[in-house]
C-alpha cells in the first residue's frame, strides 16, 4: 500500500524520508488531523495539508536564513506543533534536527550546542532564548535563534534573534519566487541520509550524539506500528521530552508513517487533564508516571467515603483475580466474568476515565523496571500495559511483549527484525535495521559500542528465560560482588525498594564491601499523606524524612525487600543491612539524576561519601552538609544530622523454593 504512489511525480518515489511521507499524507488524507494543540483552553487542530504548508514555509524561511544541506538545527522547547514542524522542515532541506532537553540549564546545553555546532536554533519561548543567549560566547557558530512565542521578547534588540512568524514570512516569499525549490530539496533526500541526532543523557561522562538515519527511523517505526496494528485513527499525547528517542518515534515518526494525529498538551502542568480530554489509544510512559498515577488514586481513595472505599477494594480484588486473564483472552469462570463486568461499570470504567485511559489499546512502559504490583494493577483494570526494552542506539525497539505473553519481570521477546545475544559477561547485544549509524563526531565511542558486524553492546546485564523472554537485571558495569563474592545487583535491589509507594529513590552500595547498605528518598506525596492522616506534623521534606515513625516505615519496606532477596539463592547474601533516609530529594539540577531521572550512582557515592562512610562505619548518626541548586539556578547549603538504621537480615532459607 505504501508503494501505491511510487514513481508518480517525484524522482525518487520511495517513501524513505519524513518530508516525503508528509507529502504522501497531505495528498492522501489532506483534511485529516496531523497535530493538535490546546491553546487558550481550546484544542486547535492542524490538518496534514496545513502541516505541509507550515513545514514548506518554515523550510524555505530557514533556507533564506542561510540554513544549508547537512546543517544541524537545534530545537529546544516543550512539545509544540511548531517545533515538530521545525524537525521536518530541517529534514526537508537536508538538515539534521537536534532536539534538546527543554529543562536543561544553560551549562548542560552548552556541551550539546558546542558539539552539534548548530548555526540556527529554534527555541520555544523567552526562557529557552535566554539560555541560548547565555551560550553565545561558547558557541560562536550559532548565528540565528528563531523564537516561536513572542511573549516577553520585546525588550530584546539583538540581530541574532528572529521570530518564527518572520521566518515563515520569508519562506512564503521565497516559495513565491522559487516554487520548485522545496519540492526539489525534498526529492533530493534519501533513506541513507542522517535523520536526527539525539543526545543521550548519559549516566557517566558527556552526552553522546546518536546519529540515526531515515532508514533506521522509518523502518523501525513501520515495524513497530505493524506489530501493534496502529492505524490512522490512533490518538497520541506528546508530553515526553522531544529530545528523547521514544517521543521521536511515537509522537513524530510513527505519526508520519501511519498518519495518526498527535496532540500537544497545553502546558507541562496540565498533562493529566489533557490526557483525560484526549483519551489516547497509544500511550507511552516511564514507570514513574504509572506509579504517580497509582499513588494519586490510592491517596484519593483513602480520602473517599467508606462505601466507595469498600467498593474499590472489593472490585479491585475481583480485578486482580479475573482482570488479567480476561485481558489476555484466557478462560475465566462465568461468575467472575459477571462480577468483572459489574466492576467495569462501577469502578474500572470511571477510574480509567479519570486517568484518561478509557481508550487505550496499547500502553508501553520502558526505561526502568516497573513494580509488579503497579503493572498488574493497570492490566487488571483492562489497560493493556506492556513492557518494552530499547535504547536510543536501537531506534527504541530491542524487545517488546507480544499480546498474550505479558510478564511483569521480563521485557519481552525480540522486536520484529531484531537479533539478540548474550555475551560471556552476561551483557546483552542486539543487531537490527534500527542500529544507529554512529555517535556524532566520536568514532572511538562508536567503535566501542558497535562491533564491525553490526552488533551493539547495550551495557545491560541480563539473560533469556525459558520462554525466550529477555530479563534485565542491571547495568552490566554496575553488577558487582560483595567482599565474600556474593552477587550484588544494585539496581535490582533499588527497584525492589522503589516498588514501595513510600520510597521514591534508593541507591544501594555493596561492591567490594562486606554488606549492602542504602541511601533512601521517601516519596513526599505518599508519606506526606500518611503523615496527615496520622497527625505527624512536619515543616519540610528534611523533617519528614528524618521522623522516627517515617524511618520505621522505611525500615519495614527494607525488611520486606530482604525477605524477598532471601528467597533467591544467588542474591540472598546481598540483603540491605543499614540505611539512611536522605535529607534532600535527589535531583537532576544537582547532577544526582540524569534528565530522564536515572541515578548517577558514582556521582551520588562521591557527593555523599561521608554518609556512605558512616553506613559502613558503625556509628548511629552522621552530620552532613550538602550544596543544593534551586530551580532558578542559585545555590545554597542544607545541613542535617541523619540517623542510620540497622535492619536484621532474613535467613537465606526462610522462603527457599
Amino acid at each position, binding site marked *: 500500500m505504501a508503494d501505491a504512489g511510487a514513481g508518480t511525480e517525484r524522482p525518487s518515489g520511495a517513501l524513505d524520508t519524513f518530508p516525503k511521507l508528509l507529502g504522501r499524507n497531505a495528498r492522501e488524507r489532506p483534511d485529516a488531523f496531523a497535530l493538535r494543540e*490546546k*491553546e*487558550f*483552553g*481550546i484544542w486547535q487542530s492542524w490538518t496534514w495539508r496545513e502541516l505541509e504548508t507550515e513545514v514548506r514555509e518554515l523550510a524555505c524561511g530557514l533556507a533564506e536564513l542561510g540554513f544549508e544541506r547537512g546543517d544541524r538545527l537545534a530545537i529546544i522547547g516543550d512539545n509544540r506543533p511548531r517545533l515538530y514542524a521545525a524537525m521536518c522542515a530541517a529534514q526537508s532541506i537536508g538538515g539534521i534536527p537536534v532536539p534538546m532537553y527543554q529543562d536543561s540549564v544553560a551549562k548542560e546545553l552548552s556541551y550539546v550546542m558546542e558539539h552539534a555546532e548548530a548555526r540556527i536554533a529554534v527555541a520555544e519561548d523567552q526562557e529557552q532564548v535566554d539560555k541560548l543567549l547565555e551560550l553565545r560566547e561558547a558557541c560562536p557558530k550559532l548565528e540565528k535563534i528563531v523564537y516561536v512565542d513572542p*511573549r*516577553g521578547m*520585546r*525588550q530584546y*534588540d539583538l540581530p541574532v534573534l528572529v521570530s518564527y512568524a518572520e521566518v515563515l514570512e520569508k519562506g512564503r516569499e521565497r516559495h513565491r519566487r522559487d516554487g520548485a525549490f522545496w519540492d526539489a530539496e525534498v526529492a533530493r533526500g534519501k533513506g541513507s541520509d542522517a535523520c536526527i541526532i539525539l543526545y543521550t543523557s548519559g549516566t557517566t561522562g558527556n552526552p553522546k550524539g546518536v546519529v540515526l538515519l531515515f532508514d533506521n527511523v522509518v523502518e523501525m517505526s513501520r515495524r513497530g506500528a505493524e506489530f501493534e496494528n496502529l492505524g490512522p485513527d490512533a490518538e497520541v499525547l506528546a508530553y515526553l521530552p522531544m529530545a528523547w528517542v521514544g517521543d521521536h518515534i511515537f509522537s513524530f515518526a510513527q505519526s508520519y508513517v501511519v498518519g495518526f494525529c498527535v496532540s500537544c498538551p*497545553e*502546558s507541562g*502542568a*496540565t498533562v493529566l*487533564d489533557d490526557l483525560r480530554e484526549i483519551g489516547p489509544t497509544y500511550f507511552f510512559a516511564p514507570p514513574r508516571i504509572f506509579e504517580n498515577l497509582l499513588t494519586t488514586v490510592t491517596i484519593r481513595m483513602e480520602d473517599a467515603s467508606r462505601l466507595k472505599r469498600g467498593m474499590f477494594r472489593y472490585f479491585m480484588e475481583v480485578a486482580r483475580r479475573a482482570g488479567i486473564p480476561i485481558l489476555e483472552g484466557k478462560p475465566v469462570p462465568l461468575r467472575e466474568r459477571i462480577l468483572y463486568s459489574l466492576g467495569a461499570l462501577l469502578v474500572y470504567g470511571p477510574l480509567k476515565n479519570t486517568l484518561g485511559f478509557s481508550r487505550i489499546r496499547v500502553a508501553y512502559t520502558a526505561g526502568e523496571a516497573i513494580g509488579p504490583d503497579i503493572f498488574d494493577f493497570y492490566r487488571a483494570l483492562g489497560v493493556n500495559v506492556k513492557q518494552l526494552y530499547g535504547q536510543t542506539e536501537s531506534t527504541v525497539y530491542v524487545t517488546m511483549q507480544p499480546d498474550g505473553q505479558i510478564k511483569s519481570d521480563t521485557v519481552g521477546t525480540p522486536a520484529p527484525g531484531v537479533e539478540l545475544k548474550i555475551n560471556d559477561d552476561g551483557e546483552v547485544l542486539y543487531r537490527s535495521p534500527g542500529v544507529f549509524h554512529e555517535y556524532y563526531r566520536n568514532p572511538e565511542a562508536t567503535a566501542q559500542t558497535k562491533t564491525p558486524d553490526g552488533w551493539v553492546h547495550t551495557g545491560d546485564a541480563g539473560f533469556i528465560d525459558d520462554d525466550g523472554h529477555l530479563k534485565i537485571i542491571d547495568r552490566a558495569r554496575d553488577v558487582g560482588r560483595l567482599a565474600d563474592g556474593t552477587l550484588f545487583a544494585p539496581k535490582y535491589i533499588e527497584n525492589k525498594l522503589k516498588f514501595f509507594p513510600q520510597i521514591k529513590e534508593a541507591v544501594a552500595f555493596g561492591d567490594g564491601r562486606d554488606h549492602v547498605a542504602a541511601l533512601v528518598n521517601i516519596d513526599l506525596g505518599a508519606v506526606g499523606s500518611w503523615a496527615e492522616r496520622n497527625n505527624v506534623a512536619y515543616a519540610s521534606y528534611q523533617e519528614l524524612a528524618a521522623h522516627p515513625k517515617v524511618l520505621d516505615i522505611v525500615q519495614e519496606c527494607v525488611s520486606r525487600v530482604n525477605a524477598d532477596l532471601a528467597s533467591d539463592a544467588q542474591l540472598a547474601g546481598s540483603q540491605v543491612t543499614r540505611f539512611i533516609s536522605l535529607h534532600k530529594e535527589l535531583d537532576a539540577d544537582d547532577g544526582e539524576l540524569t534528565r530522564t531521572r536515572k541515578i548517577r550512582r558514582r556521582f551520588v557515592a562521591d557527593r555523599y561519601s561521608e554518609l556512605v562512610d558512616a553506613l559502613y562505619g558503625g556509628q548511629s548518626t552522621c552530620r552532613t552538609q550538602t550544596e543544593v541548586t*534551586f*530551580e*532558578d539556578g542559585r545555590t545554597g547549603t542544607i545541613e542535617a544530622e541523619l540517623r542510620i538504621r540497622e535492619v536484621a537480615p532474613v535467613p537465606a532459607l526462610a522462603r527457599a523454593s
Partner: protein
Amino acid sequence: MAGPETSPAEAILEVENVSLRFGGVQALSEVSFDVQSGEVRAIIGPNGAGKSSMLNVINGFYHPQEGSITFKGVTRRRMRTHEAAAQGIARTFQNIALFRGMTTLDNIMTGRNLKMKRNFLLQALYLGPARREEMEHREFAERVIDFLEIQAIRKTPVSRLPYGLQKRVELGRALAAEPDMLLLDEPMAGMNTEEKEDMCRFILDVNGEFGTTVVLIEHDMGVVMDISDRVVVLDYGRLLADGTPDEVRRNPLVIDAYLGTVRD
C-alpha cells in the same frame, strides 16, 4: 528598558494636595504626585504611612476631604469605585479578595463584568447575542489565563489554591477588566523568592506588552528598586520624597525614616 519613553511623559493620573482624615486621624496630608502613562510607579513607606489609603483614594473607595484626583484629564472629588473601574482603573488587594468558592476561570470572568453589555434576561437564558458576548469574554479570559500561565488551575476553586497562586488569580481578574491603570496593593506579600520573581515578570510584562500603567505598594525594597520607574515615599501621611529609585535611595530623609540609619 524601552517602556515609558514611548509616549512623551504624559500624566495619566494627577494627585493634588490630597488630605484624608478619619475622625481625628490624619491618614494623608496634602499629598501631591503624578503617574505618567505607561510607567511603573511604586508607593513605599513604613506601616501606617498611608499607602493603602492612597490607593483607596485613587480608586474611589475613600473620598478625600481636600484635594483632587485627575485621571485621564477628568478631575473628580467624589467618585464611586465602580465609576473608577469603568474609567479604566483595576486593582488587587493586600488581603486577597477573591470569590473563594468559585473557580479561577469564573473569578477572572467576573473581571469582565463591566464589559458585559447584554441585559440580565438574555444572559440568564444564554440566548443569541448574550451567548456570542459570553464567548468573546471567555476568549479574553483565556488570554489572561495563558498570559499568567495558570492553565492548570483553570477549573480549580480558588480556595484550594496556595497563596501565591491566589495572588496571581487576583491579578488575572484585574487584567480581565483591560485597565489603563492597575493598582497593586502588596502583590508580593507572603511570597517566596521564586513566586516573587514570577510576579515581577508578570508585572513587567503587563506593563511592557499592554502598556498598562502600574501603581504598586510593596515592602520588598529589592523588588521596588528593580521594577519601578519612579517611587513615591510616604511617611505619616506626608509625601517624603518622589523620584527615581536611585534618587530615593540616596535621599537622606528616606534613609532616616524608612531604610534605616546611615552607616558610616
